[in-house]
Every structure is written in C-alpha cells, then in structure tokens.
C-alpha cells in the first residue's frame, strides 16, 4: 500500500466524514435542544437529494438546482415542524420513535409515488467534471475536492454561528439546559422551528452534493441515518464539535476499513473473499468503535449537558 493510495483514501474518508457531519450536525442539535429523536432526518436528506436532482435536471444547472432544492427542503422542514414535529417535543422518546418512523415510511412511499422507483441521476456541475492533479501521480476528482471544501466551509461557518452569535448562544444554552434557556427568555418556539429548518437545509445540502456521486433513490436515507446517529452518540448528543469529531472518526474507520481490511485479508483469504468481506468488516468496525466509546465515555466524547 503506497503513499499515494493512502492519501487518496484519506481524502475519501474526509469527504465522507464531512457529508456525514452535515447530517449529524442537524440531528444532534434537534436531539440535544428539542430532545427529539428524529428518525425522519434521513428522509429529509432523501427528499433534499430528490428535489436538488429534479430541479438541476429541469433547469440544466447544478447550482440552480442546489439552491432551489435547499430552499424547497427548508420549506418542507418548516411545514413539517409547524404541523407535526412541534407536537412531539413534550412526548416521550418512544412516541417520538413511533411518529418519526411513521414519517419515514410515508416519506419513502411518497417519494416513490412522485418520482417512481428508478434511481435518478444528478448532472455534475460542468466546470468540476475532470480530475485535478494534486501531487505528481495523485489526481483526484475536482468535484470531490469541491465537496470537501464545501463541507469544511459549512463546518467553519457553523462553528462561528454557534460560538460567536446571539442565536448560537441561545442554541448552546438550550443544549446545556433547556428549561433554564427558556426561563432566561430565549424564544423557544421560533428557535425550534428555525433549528429544524436549518437541519433540513443541511440535509438537502448533503443530499444535493452527494447526488452526482451516488444514485438518488428511495431508502438512501436509512443507512446514513443510522450512521449519523452513531456519529452524534460518539460525539455527545447536542454537541456540534462532537458531531464533527465523530463524523471524521466514522469516515476514517469506514473508508479505512474498506481499504485496509481487504488489503489485510487479501493475503489470507484471496482477493475475491476479501472484497466481499471488507465492506461488512468496515461497517462492523464502526459499531465496535461506538460501543467502545460508550463503554468508556457513556456520555460521548464531548457531552453538551451539564
């Protein structure tokens, strides 16, 4: 395994981790502040990806599609929060699981009704189609580099938003002690709707950006939703910093497992067996990581409460 391949895999894991972060950031805020287990978060990601793909195909421009798709998903998020999600904040976690699981089922079939069962492709933006030579011998797709840059940008903006603004202060207060924040005059109702819509926007951004790389299809939200939950539990519920660290860790373990494990197993079991076992072992490693973190730090790496 040479250095170029290693570097390439590191970039892949960074890209995956950052996209995971976009999902996990919204999830951890909604969970930490509204105390809501939202199983439908992955559905917002799916709906966002579909909206971006459709608008991009219709307008012929990826950028118009991305902007329009995000805006439309924000609207979906606001409507959802004001009609249904709002009623769930005071309910217990079990009820929330039931209700958002119901939403997930409805979203999957709703998308199937509108767009059909066939996966749809998003056109990649024209200017970013080719590869870029980063180092002699290492060329990397420009579009993936762009995703990494976008993910880093969002992470920095989120950091500034949360640590340097008044809204961010209220969000942190809410994550640390909800009742106290309410008593101190944070406009909780508005804040909750805004946060939920913000989470939806991040979902649509992730879904839209990943659209050209993977098939946009029904069920795409489920597997990534569970990974996002793993991320926020590793990071500590309610902590955006924890979500970032957790997402990068999970990205590293996942991509690393997919490349290093087959490479290790290849010698022992032959390449065919290694290529089928690799991805599963990588997935198992993620959950081993999570169980280990919870065993030693039951509140996650960066507990927000307290």
């Amino acid at each position, binding site marked *: 395994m040479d250095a170029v391949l290693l570097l390439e895999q590191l970039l892949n894991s960074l890209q995956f981790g950052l996209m995971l972060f976009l999902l996990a950031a919204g999830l951890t805020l909604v969970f930490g502040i509204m105390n809501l287990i939202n199983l439908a978060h992955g559905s917002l990601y799916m709906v966002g990806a579909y909206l971006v793909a459709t608008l991009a195909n219709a307008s012929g421009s990826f950028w118009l599609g991305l902007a329009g798709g995000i805006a439309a998903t924000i609207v979906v998020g606001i409507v959802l929060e004001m009609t249904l999600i709002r009623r769930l904040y005071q309910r217990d976690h079990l009820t929330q699981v039931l209700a958002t699981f119901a939403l997930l089922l409805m979203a999957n079939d709703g998308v199937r009704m509108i767009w059909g069962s066939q996966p749809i492709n998003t056109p990649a933006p024209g200017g970013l189609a080719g590869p870029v030579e980063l180092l002699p011998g290492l060329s990397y797709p420009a579009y993936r580099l762009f995703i990494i840059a976008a993910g880093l940008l969002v992470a920095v903006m989120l950091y500034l938003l949360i640590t340097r603004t008044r809204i961010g202060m209220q969000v942190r207060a809410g994550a640390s002690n909800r009742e106290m924040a309410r008593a101190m005059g944070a406009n909780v109702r508005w804040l909750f709707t805004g946060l939920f819509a913000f989470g939806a926007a991040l979902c649509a951004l992730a879904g839209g950006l990943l659209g050209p790389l993977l098939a946009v299809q029904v069920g795409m939200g489920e597997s990534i939703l569970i990974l996002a*939950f793993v991320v926020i539990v590793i990071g500590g519920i309610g902590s955006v910093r924890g979500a970032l660290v957790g997402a990068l860790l999970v990205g590293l373990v996942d991509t690393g497992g997919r490349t290093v494990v087959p490479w290790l197993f290849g010698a022992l079991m032959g390449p065919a067996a290694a290529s089928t076992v690799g991805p599963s072992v990588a997935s198992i490693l993620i*959950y081993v990581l999570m*169980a280990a973190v919870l065993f030693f730090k039951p509140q996650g790496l960066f507990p927000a409460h307290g």
Partner: protein
Amino acid sequence: MAETGNAQPAYRHPRSLLEHSLQPFVALPLLALLVTLPWITHALDADFYTSVASRMLILALAATSLNFILGFGGMVSFGHAAFVGVGGYTVGILMMNGLVSGWIAWPAAFVVAGLFALMIGLVSLRTRGVYFIMITLAFAQMLFYLMVSLQQYGGEDGLPLASRSRLGLGLDLARDTQFYYVVLVICTLLFIAFTRVLNSRFGHVLQAIRENETRMMALGFRVYHYKLLAFTLAGAVAGLAGALLANQSSFVSPALLNWTESGVMLVMVILGGVGHVYGGFAGAVAYLLIEEISSGRTMYWHFWLGAILLAVVLLAPNGLLSLLRRKERP
C-alpha cells in the same frame, strides 16, 4: 389464568399496579377464536390466511418478549430483531448441516439467542436512556453486518431452508394447519409463562426497577442482575420466535436483523400498548392486519401504514389498548 388468591403476600392490593392478569374474559374467547381459526379460514376458502395467522402469532411472541423488557423493565432496546435473526439463523445453519429436528434446533435457537442477549446485555446495561437505545442498535447492526459478510451462509442473499423442522409425533409441519397449531401451542404456553413471571417476585422487582431504579438500588436490590436476566430471557424468547419465523417462511436473511426490523418491533409494541399484557400481541396483530389489508390494495401501503401510525400517536398516545385501560384503572 384467574387469580386464585391463595398464599398471597399481605402487601398486595387486589388491583395492584404490579399485578397483570390475562383476564379470562379476554383470553378464553381469544383462544377459542385462535383454535377454530383454521376451520374458519377453510370454510371461507381462504386457507392462505392460516399461514398469515402463524406469522402473526410468531411476531406477537417476538413483540411480547420486547414488551417484557420495554414495558415492564423500562429498557428501550432498539436491537431486538437481532435476536430474532440469531434464532432464525441457528435453525437455518443447523439444517444446512443436516440437523432437521425441531426438538434440537428450536431449543438451540432459544439458548444461542439467549447467550447473545446475555453478552450484549452485559455491556449495554451499563448505559442509560438514549445511550442504551443506541448501543443495543450498535450491537444489532454488528450482527447484521456479520451475517452479510458470512458468505458460507448466503451472505446478503440469505439462506433458504430445505424444509421445515421435523418434530416427529406424526406431525408434518410442511402442512400450514399443523404448523399453525404447533405455533399456537408454543405461543400460548409462553404467554402464560410471561404473565406468571410478571406476577412473580422477579416480575415485581423488575417493574419496580422500571418505576424507580435508584430507589430499588437503595433498597439493596441488584438492579443490574435483574435487568440482565430479563434482557437475556427476552432475547431467548425472541430467538425462539426467530426459529419459528424461519420455519414459517423457509428462509432467513440478514434483512431479519436490520435496524428497520427492530424499529418495526418497537412500533408494534408502542402501537399495542407499552406495559400492557396484551400490548405486544395487539400491536403485532394490528400491524400485520394493516399490512395484509393495505398491501393487497395499493403498492404504496407503507404510506397508509405511516398515516395510521401517526393517527395513533396523535389520538391514542399510549397505544390502542390504552383506550380500553382507561376504564379499568381510574
């Protein structure tokens, strides 16, 4: 199962919160209906529904085992489908190696799933609340991906069973009606056992732990041990349900262990009524009825299932059976 009232401890109130009766006025007609069901479906020329009813009973058993730890032990396990899958795979793998006897394979499924539950519980029960939900999910997903990676047992495609298990005694489980009665006997016995356990000292301690763990700890109960035993028992029963389910569909696949299946089982229990003796049963039957009725009519039956679940959340917050319970407990 009427409460006879002999040798009861003095502290017990007639309708103590910790006592759970199968309520003979519900249980007996229900049992009569279940016993006569194959005749009814035969008379209606709908023999297919006997097989559907087997499936309902099996999932009712699995959901009840989840309700045991969820509703009576306060443990929200988001990985219960893993034990069902382990039980199913135990039967499948034994059969692949030529062992078809249900007398060996089914208890084996019970024991193997119980051992898995014991090991998972050992670690998971050290965490609380949301973290418990997530760590049980994590272990279930590990088992899911383990089964996906085991190519010799079919990997992602799953493992077809050559036949149904053999029980001897002149029984032919390949016939749906006979299989149904075997399932009915097992489920009835376990259901009675379930209420016996709830009303035993162990069951009372478990429910008291659900109400106030700290207090029980202060009273000197080994909370962790009680919870671990309950978790193991529930996993073992789920494993037996998995063994029956594998027989019913003659097929096991990693999809049995996927987190969405654990979600469906939670939904069944919540739908029926968390902490209600019949909660798991009612939830599983209601869920599968909705599935059976709507999947025949529309391709998009998940949509309507979701809509019905949402309606239940908004209109009957504590599950369908809470609508009845209100009268019973003022």
